[in-house]
């Protein structure tokens, strides 16, 4: 019985009874209040409409039960696993935490696939059974507690109902509180990001294999997969180089497209081309990565080989690798064109028309007006757009994973395959990872650095944008 409950895919079935209970409470509250005897005095008028009484009762019923379920979702599984882990026989625990984690993973996977057949391994089968039983117990407790909470809430709430009860006030307060919780989730996300990154980074630096902070930030030797060298300078260099190459494409193309679209193009042309440019931002990065690796990278390599074959270049002047920083940078540049162009477009359009008219009136040509009046006025906004684009380029992952290669090199040759921070994070955390090796933790340290850098760029950019907007509004 307990075992069956443990195997059930019960999580999604819980929502239905909860909703049903809420609906029942709602209609009950609504009719109950409506049926109260109507007094003759003015004070006996309903304070709130019957609907609000219904909502009030529904909240009283659902919210406590939902909290119980939330608590179960957050802590139930952990509790079950911890209990099972403590019950494992000694000879298994003696094999070390990695083996236990692997075993537990296999057990939970087996249960979550709802296979009931025995595998033949006695310990494994017993663990699977025990796990299902424990899970069933935890679920029963959670369901019991939720029913109790719902009933308790329902009856407590029902005692409150009366014609003069200000149900609307309570309902609206609850709604406002719920709305606030939703808004706070955004903050919680940031807090979660910062806390988890900081925590894992601290663990990385304090782990026995981990490097010192100085070595991490300024060491030039990176070999996290096999060795224990965690000098991240080659990664920072590669990230910067590819971002720079990308900006070399994105800034001129984005800026000139924005200028042309906002100052020269006919409305008809604009209405066609602008969505096409924005389409560039909607294409998934993995598609760009495929394109970079299958078409651009071979072209770059062919070009590099052509340069090498020129009479006046040394034989191995360019590295001509099958994946290269240049290929990744070029494609990434195209990807961020719309980020530069649409933001620049906005700020260029926000430059007041009288400025242009003044310049044109004293005889400047259109391009002179743009170069000497409009662009300087829009400069802060354009810089903000470029900063946001840089932050996007630094954090871009799939294109570099697919087209830039994984060698930690410091070289100025754009046709060589250099690695980036994001590439290393992916390669360190993909596949089966234990959370306590220096190898895995180094990914979090890299992530923390990445977060810090992009946060800096974003904050500066947002500040510039805000300041600039205030100047013209």
């Amino acid at each position: 019985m307990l075992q069956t409950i443990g195997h059930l895919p019960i999580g999604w079935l819980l929502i239905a009874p909860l909703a049903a209970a809420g609906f029942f409470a709602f209609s009950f509250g609504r009719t109950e209040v409506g049926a109260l005897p109507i007094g003759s005095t003015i004070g006996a008028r309903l304070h709130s409409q019957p609907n609000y009484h219904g909502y009030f009762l529904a909240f009283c019923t659902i919210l406590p039960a939902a909290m119980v379920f939330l608590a179960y979702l957050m802590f139930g599984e952990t509790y079950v696993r911890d209990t099972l882990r403590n019950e494992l026989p000694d000879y298994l625990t003696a094999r070390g935490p990695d083996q236990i984690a692997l075993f537990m993973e296999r057990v939970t996977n087996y249960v979550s696939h709802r296979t009931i057949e025995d595998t033949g391994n006695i310990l494994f089968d017993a663990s699977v059974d025990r796990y299902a039983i424990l899970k069933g117990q935890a679920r029963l407790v959670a369901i019991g507690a939720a029913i109790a909470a719902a009933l308790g809430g329902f009856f407590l709430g029902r005692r409150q109902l009366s014609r003069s009860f200000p149900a609307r006030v309570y309902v609206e307060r609850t709604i406002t509180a719920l709305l606030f919780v939703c808004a706070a989730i955004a903050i919680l996300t940031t807090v979660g990001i910062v806390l988890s990154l900081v925590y894992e980074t601290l663990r990385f630096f304090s782990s026995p294999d981990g490097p010192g902070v100085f070595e991490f930030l300024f060491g030039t030797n990176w070999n996290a997969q096999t060795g224990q060298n965690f000098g991240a300078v080659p990664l920072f260099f590669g990230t910067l180089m590819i971002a720079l190459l990308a900006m070399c494409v994105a800034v001129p193309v984005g800026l000139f497209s924005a200028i042309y679209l906002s100052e020269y193009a006919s409305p008809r042309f604009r209405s066609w081309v602008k969505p096409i440019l924005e389409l560039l931002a909607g294409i998934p990065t993995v598609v760009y990565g495929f394109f970079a690796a299958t078409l651009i990278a071979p072209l770059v390599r062919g070009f590099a080989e052509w340069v090498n074959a020129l009479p006046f270049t040394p034989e191995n002047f360019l590295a001509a690798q099958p994946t290269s920083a240049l290929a990744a940078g070029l494609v990434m540049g195209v990807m961020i064109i719309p980020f530069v162009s649409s933001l620049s477009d906005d700020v260029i359009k926000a430059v007041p028309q009288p400025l242009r008219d003044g310049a044109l009136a004293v005889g400047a040509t259109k391009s002179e007006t743009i170069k000497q009046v409009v662009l300087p006025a829009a400069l802060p906004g354009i810089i903000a757009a470029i900063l946001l684009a840089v932050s996007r380029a630094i954090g871009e992952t799939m294109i570099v994973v697919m087209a830039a290669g994984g060698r930690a090199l410091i070289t100025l040759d754009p046709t060589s395959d250099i690695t980036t921070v994001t590439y290393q994070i992916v390669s360190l955390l993909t596949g089966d990872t234990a959370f306590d090796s220096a190898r895995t933790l180094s990914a979090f340290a890299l992530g923390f650095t990445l977060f810090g850098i992009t946060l800096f760029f974003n904050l500066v950019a947002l500040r510039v944008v805000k300041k600039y907007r205030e100047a013209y509004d």
Partner: protein
Amino acid sequence: MTETGLPSESVRDDRMRRRNQAERRFKLYGQIAIGFAVSFLFALLISIGLRAVSAFSHHTLVVELPASELAEPDNLDVTDLNLAIRANLLTTFPELAEDRTERADLFALVPRLAVLPLVQDLQSDFPAEDPLSVNLVMSDDVDLYLKNDIRLHRSTRVGQAGRLAQLSTGAYRLSDAGQDSFISFQDQLAATSAADQDILIDLSGALFELVDTAGASLILDHLAGPVPELGEQDARPVTAIYLGSDSANRQLSARQVAILILMRDAGIIERRFNASLFVNADSTYPELAGAAAAIVGSVFTMLVTALFAMPVGVFAAIYLEEFAHKSRLTNIIEVNINNLAAVPSIIFGLLGAAVFLNTFDLPRSIPLVGGLVLGLLVLPTIIIASRAALRSVPPSMREAALGLGASKSQAVFHHVLPRAAPGILTGAIIAMARALGETAPLLLIGMVAFVSDVPTSPNDEATVLPVLIYKWFSGSERAWEPMTAAIILILLTILIAMNLVAVLLRRRFERRW
């Protein structure tokens, strides 16, 4: 001309001309920039489309099985069917039955697991016809060869066969019918540097490989097809087939190519629509792999993302736009949301790995975790879009509702929200499209695991389309590339459809107040 400081007319014209040139140049730069961006987009789409086309069809081999000799439908398994298929292939090519390597060459054309869908079909519904004609997927190398390399084949008439004699080494010596045509063939060979490609010799339905020449005779290795009995008087035509490749840069052996030529001439190879791309789950064999599991995984993941991010995002926007008082806290939330929208997506993957996997001990690779991570990722986008939509509803709307005695939340939920709904929905769809294309954070929470079953709930191990693109892209066989391009097309089609819906919604409900 000499009056004052004004420049002469010619100088002024000259300067004006240069300024006008600068003007035209500047305009041209803008056109070039737009042209570059647009043509790059088309290059991307066309290059992917061209690569994808071949993956939508594949070659199948028609094999006739003796239905009466097959095991009972209930006990039928992959091994039985493979035995039957192999027996059938050997009746078609009896000359290959003797030698083990020759048999292996023949059997390798059809992968062992190609019968898997057939086994399921037969188990549920065993047809009455006998012999049973079935279509089997051919291996990826065969498929690619038939799609591309076979176009390099060139046949030429060489001459008339005289005598065919087997040597002690097992090779054959084919002599000329006496017209010296083999000599001119050899001269031609020497002249055209055709030596770096393999050459097959077709002798009335039997295929040989040209290994050497001896005087006016050709030394041949038998590949496939029945060896004809040739006496002195038989003057049968001899045809040479230049393969355009040699065994080093070809995935198939010369014998396999010969078998394929014979099969094709016999009309038992068909090119069909590759339905397995949409129906099958992932596989380690490209010819059997499909995107069905990833599509279902994507649906589950998007479901979780939508159920989490849309209500939370919209409610957060309502709070910030309608309820919040200007305070330090709301200010922080605002800055924070704008920042969060620009945080690299891979950071969200780290968050998911650290919080959901490590702290809450949730299993890896499940759409539930993936959907939550993507939900957090698109939350700021939804909030920002919803706020813009709410802001575009004129204040008079709220004031009228409040003036008639509605409470704040009545005014918002009954009057403002319905007016803002199309805008909110548009933003939400665009955000979902972004989540659908996201790859990096999902790699970090283990959604790259090999999943060979179609998931049935958000708690099953699964992968999603963009991750499958990455996985197939990383596969080493050449056949993965067109298949990757094909599922990219599927993904792009879905994304474009979502964006179109968003645009149409905006057009349909756009109102200026």
